[in-house]
């Protein structure tokens, strides 16, 4: 009967027995019982029924018993929240224990009890522990904040624990620093808005110091955190690199890879001609190679990352080809990755070796690997032109082995080689044709059919060959059917006389007897083409094909940039952008239309990459090749594109005509430009800070020339002479176009105005904020430094008017993530006046549209470095607030463009 009281299924009476033992008076028996309970719990038995009995054992001086009870609590507190409250008092007491080990243990366990009711009781003890005198307790408490945040984020924020955590970054103990960083990073992950890891040169210095002294795991956290920092200039970048390099010799491969990430990223900022840059490149190779001698799982992750590094900086590993040679007992996932990297590293210098290896692999046992090896030979041929002939003969050798799957793979890749080097290797077609019967895989059959069709004029029995495939047309896969259809049409166009019957047959098979819409459609198209205009058909079907290149398998550059910044993460293993897959709130921020502020997203590639040259240089302007799914851009632009496309499709009316006239009636309607707005001079350098020299100034763009207008005032007692000016590197390469002309000495209390023409040819480095300019002015007394910010409109060039069609296409092409929305308040101008004003500052209105009393202006701006900025401004009649949407491939400029709008419109 007592057994039944236990209310659990307990056939052996085990639980009952344990219950008795737990309540025993003998300490020893109690402990043994708790041990048994833990053992049952570990193997997954449900011993939660014993909760009150186990918790009763908690009040003990025996450390082991205490630990065991804590273990139990962590496991079952969730299922018994009411009971768990019984434990709170003991925690509070333990947090004040004189023994730091007990304090730490208590604070650690507290955080693991994931019961909402309890968390509130834990705040006070936690606050104490965060300020504990013993670093061991502080470091444990830091992690506890992260735990608590996971359970109740609001509570943690309300209690101010995040600030305490931030303070711990400056703790004297490196272990505490490391844990604080780790906890903050974890919290930041679920909390992308908060500016938790606000890094500045001081904290960076703290982190770098802690890096040398903390545990290996702490080093990983710190390095990953460092990687998010944006150094101010190349010198800071170099000094961080210097302090991180020793980590490359760490025994823990995760430390090594995180260090590689930091170096790969910060290297970007170093000038390429710097000696140190070369040294750093050399230092990166050995640790990467060493990663490949570790356990296979580590090798795999390392190889996925090396794959990225090799694409970004092939020079690092170009001499290390041999370490990627495959050992026959490597796990398959390592083999395939090594193969991939071998192809990436293949060059004229090492191609002979690589081919010999690949040929060797093609005789291995593992079918998947063999196939990939054969494909690799084809890729080598396409990548290294000089080796193409050798590759083809290797492939022919492999075809002679008659191993079925080898032959089929070889044929698939030879098709690609034909496409890359047309009219060069067609002599091998005869050999290929011999193997026609053995092909049973659709891809190989399709490839062979493509070859026969493409070179029909050189294959005497092409019609017979294709006819033989036609017999089982309906049993073929779609891929083969489509290919066969095309091949026969090609054949017909080349040899029309003999093949009329054949083409009839295939067309009727495709159009009448098939259920597949793709096949039917293609059949009909050919049929109509052939019947209406055979010449046109020839032009279409036998058109010259674009060449293929090895680039097809490379990761798209902007994604690569982003992935390089995430070396060592899951993203780098999957070669997907970090935002694409990890669960969490990161994704929320990516939804573009809900975003009003343009603070660059912490994970957006441009922000996290200190790639100043490529981020803002002309490179970014090239149309990205990334396939952005074409999402309708919201109804406003969509209707615009429809209306403009309509006349063309309705019988070739002139492009601007009819209703479109109202829409685009802007060309001459705008008055003469009124000249760009020039802000009044502001004080840049105060006399008290510069030994009596005062400088105020502003920037202006006059007739395409950028000028810096300066007023120099001498407030000292002596004469000033020998003026000179210099700029630090800046985001857009602004530099003085000539020396500063101060011809006469500047006497005390005299002011002189100078206009300094600027050029855009200076060295580029991304500044924070983007439009920041650091200036050094020298005179006979000293050198003075100040920084000022120029309006971005300074860089708006005169030929910034984009073609309408280009505008539409570009707007669509720029990912929606890059769109930023702003409000311009209190403007009492109608749309024409506004656009007139803006044109004065080289913001050009391309089109205007009025919908339901709302004027929409579509505008374009071009920066001196070739970046295009597209904007849509919505003006509601009677509403003084304008809505501005800005889209640009370099989204960080949006904010500054918006500022220019505001400046221009309000002045």
């Amino acid at each position, binding site marked *: 009967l007592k057994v039944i009281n236990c209310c659990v299924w307990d056939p052996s009476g085990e639980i009952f027995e344990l219950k008795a033992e737990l309540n025993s008076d003998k300490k020893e028996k109690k*402990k043994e019982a708790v041990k048994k309970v833990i053992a049952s719990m570990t193997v997954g038995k449900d011993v939660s029924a014993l909760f009150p009995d186990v918790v009763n054992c908690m009040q003990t001086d025996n450390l082991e018993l205490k630990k065991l009870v804590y273990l139990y609590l962590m496991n079952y507190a969730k299922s018994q929240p009411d009971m768990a409250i019984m434990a709170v008092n003991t925690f509070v007491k333990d947090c004040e224990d004189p023994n730091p080990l007990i304090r730490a243990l208590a604070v650690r366990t507290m955080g693991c009890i994931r019961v909402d009711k309890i968390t509130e009781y834990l705040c006070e003890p936690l606050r104490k522990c965060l300020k504990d005198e013993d670093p061991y307790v502080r470091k444990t408490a830091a992690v506890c904040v992260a735990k608590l945040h996971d359970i109740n984020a609001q509570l943690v924020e309300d209690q101010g624990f995040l600030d305490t955590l931030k303070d711990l970054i400056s703790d004297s103990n490196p272990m505490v620093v490391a844990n604080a960083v780790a906890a903050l990073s974890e919290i930041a992950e679920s909390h992308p808005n908060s500016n938790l890891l606000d890094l500045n040169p001081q904290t960076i210095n703290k982190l770098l110091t802690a890096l040398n002294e903390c545990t290996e795991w702490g080093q990983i956290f710190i390095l990953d955190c460092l990687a998010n920092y944006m150094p101010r200039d190349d010198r800071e970048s170099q000094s961080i690199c210097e302090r991180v390099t020793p980590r490359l010799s760490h025994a823990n491969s995760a430390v090594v890879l995180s260090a590689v990430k930091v170096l790969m990223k910060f290297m970007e900022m170093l000038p390429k001609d710097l000696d140190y840059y070369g040294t750093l490149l050399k230092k990166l190779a050995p640790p990467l190679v060493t990663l490949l001698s570790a356990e296979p799982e580590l090798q795999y992750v390392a190889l996925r990352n090396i794959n990225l590094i090799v694409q970004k900086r092939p020079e690092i590993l170009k001499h290390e080809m041999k370490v990627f040679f495959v050992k026959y007992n490597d796990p398959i996932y390592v083999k395939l990755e090594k193969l991939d990297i071998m192809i990436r590293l293949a060059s004229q210098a090492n191609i002979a070796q690589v081919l010999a290896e690949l040929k060797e692999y093609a005789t291995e046992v593992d079918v998947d690997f063999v196939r990939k090896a054969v494909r690799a030979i084809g890729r080598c041929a396409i990548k290294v032109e000089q080796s193409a002939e050798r590759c083809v003969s290797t492939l022919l050798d492999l075809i002679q082995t008659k191993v079925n799957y080898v032959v089929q793979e070889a044929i698939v890749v030879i098709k690609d080689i034909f496409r890359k080097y047309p009219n060069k290797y067609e002599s091998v077609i005869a050999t290929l044709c011999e193997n026609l019967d053995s092909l049973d895989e659709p891809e190989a059959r399709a490839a062979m059919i493509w070859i026969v069709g493409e070179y029909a004029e050189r294959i005497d029995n092409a019609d017979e060959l294709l006819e033989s495939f036609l017999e089982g047309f309906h049993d073929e896969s779609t891929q083969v059917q489509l290919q066969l259809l095309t091949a026969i049409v090609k054949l017909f166009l080349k040899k029309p006389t003999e093949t009329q019957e054949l083409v009839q047959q295939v067309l009727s098979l495709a159009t009448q007897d098939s259920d597949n819409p793709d096949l039917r459609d293609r059949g009909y198209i050919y049929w109509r083409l052939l019947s209406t205009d055979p010449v046109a058909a020839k032009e279409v079907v036998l058109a010259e094909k674009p060449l293929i290149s090895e680039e097809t398998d490379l990761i798209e550059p902007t994604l690569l940039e982003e992935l390089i910044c995430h070396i060592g993460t899951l993203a780098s293993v999957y070669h997907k952008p970090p935002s694409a897959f990890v669960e969490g709130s990161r994704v929320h921020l990516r939804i573009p239309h809900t975003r009003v502020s343009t603070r660059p997203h912490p994970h957006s590639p441009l922000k996290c990459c200190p790639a100043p040259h490529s981020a803002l240089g002309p490179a970014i302007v090239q149309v990205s090749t990334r396939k952005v799914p074409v999402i309708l851009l919201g109804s406003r632009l969509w209707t615009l594109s429809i209306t403009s496309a309509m006349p063309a499709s309705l019988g070739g009316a002139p492009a601007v005509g009819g209703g479109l006239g109202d829409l685009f009636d802007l060309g001459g309607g705008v008055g003469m430009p009124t000249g760009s707005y020039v802000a009044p001079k502001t004080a840049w350098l105060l006399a008290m800070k510069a030994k009596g020299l005062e400088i105020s100034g502003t920037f202006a763009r006059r007739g395409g020339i950028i000028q810096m207008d300066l007023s120099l005032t001498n407030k000292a007692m002596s004469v000033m002479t020998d003026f000179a000016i210099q700029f630090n590197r800046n985001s857009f390469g602004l530099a003085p176009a000539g020396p500063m002309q101060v011809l006469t000495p500047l006497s005390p209390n005299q002011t002189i105005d100078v206009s300094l023409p600027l050029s855009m040819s200076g060295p580029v480095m991304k500044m924070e904020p983007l439009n920041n300019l650091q200036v050094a002015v020298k005179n006979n007394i000293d050198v003075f430094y100040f920084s000022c910010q120029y309006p971005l409109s300074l860089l708006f060039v005169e030929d910034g008017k984009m073609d309408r069609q280009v505008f539409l296409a570009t707007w669509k092409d720029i990912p929606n993530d890059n769109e930023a929305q702003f409000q311009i308040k209190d403007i009492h101008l109608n749309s024409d006046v506004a656009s007139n004003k803006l044109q004065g500052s080289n913001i050009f209105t391309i089109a205007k549209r009025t919908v339901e009393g709302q004027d929409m202006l579509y505008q374009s701006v071009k920066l001196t470095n070739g970046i295009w900025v597209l904007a849509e401004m919505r003006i509601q009649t009677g509403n003084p607030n304008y809505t501005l949407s800005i889209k640009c491939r370099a989204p960080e400029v949006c904010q500054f463009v918006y500022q220019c709008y505001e400046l221009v419109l309000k002045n």
Partner: protein
Amino acid sequence: MIHSLFLINASGDIFLEKHWKSVVSRSVCDYFFEALERATEPENVPPVIPTPHHYLINVLRHRIYFVAVIQSEVPPLFVIEFLHRVVDTFQDYFGVCTEAAIKDNVVVVYELLEEMLDNGFPLATESNILKELIKPPTILRTVVNTITGSTNVGEQLPTGQLSVVPWRRTGVKYTNNEAYFDVVEEIDAIIDKSGSTITAEIQGVIDACVKLTGMPDLTLSFMNPRLLDDVSFHPCVRFKRWEAERILSFIPPDGNFRLLSYHVSSQNLVAIPVYVKHNISFREGSSQGRFELTLGPKQTMGKAVESVLVSSQLPRGVLNANLNPSQGTYTFDPVTKLLSWDVGKINPQKLPSLKGSMSLQTGASKPDENPTINIQFKIQQLAISGLKVNRLDMYGEKYKPFKGIKYMTKAGKFQVRT
């Protein structure tokens, strides 16, 4: 950070689970089992497996899969390194890392896992510190514990964790003070048909067993430190000193540890200590094949090549092999087609050979694949890279320790293609 850990045995049973945050249901392992089913060999399971809400990162060691579950972006190498550390710790504590050993010591295992991670953050992974917190089970201690009722959990604060040398515990005392260093080099090589080296590299380690009283400060210097251009150190090594003087200067952990591992790359000339002459051939249309293999020493600096073991995966078409070894014994498994020949020591005067015939299925065509020969061997008292320790000095303590250095070269992945 690391959410949960599942241990799965070769037959696919989850025999232990540990959760550091909320409990993740076992069913998440189904994705692992799917991957396991797809893999042709147990070692071919991909290390990172995505699931809709988690990522599974696994390592396979001692025929046990250690599957970690993570939920947020965590560096996979961090997880893998940690899992290997768990295995090393189990091995250290229980002597072997088997399902039985883990089950027998389940409470200690649980305590260890609890100490190693806190909320998924690594806490104590140094064996010195762990042993202070949780005493390893020994037969004696188990007996004593049951009699006296004392415990295997340490009662003091893990002092080392906060000192400047977190890897060393304080108050170490020995009656015999000794420091042994083993320089062990593994040579990885691929030799092609004609006997020329395609690639060869050396993975070297210096393992130490240091039992010294107090806080000794050691320096170790080499005759030819230039060989070591690609090294990974134990955290105890002072990196600046190495950079400047090429001397290893360190306060050692107590007991066994890996001081250093290094890599001599294929760009250096690596000596190949053995050669193989082979003739494995099949004639078209015949159901017989010839098999001839002779081994010989090469570039061994006069040292004997021992514990030689040759293995090769013969083509699938081979039914049986009828061979005659000049020394040692050979076995051929007709099911797996694995030929292995335990040669023993190579006598340079009388080279070991294995000759005979292989029978094929009648009527079967000539096999396409060429078997690769895998060779294992050991050479005592030789570091094949030529690395030599110059001297070992101790500062900071007064006594005279006993010092010893041993060298050994082993085959790593040493493969000869035919």
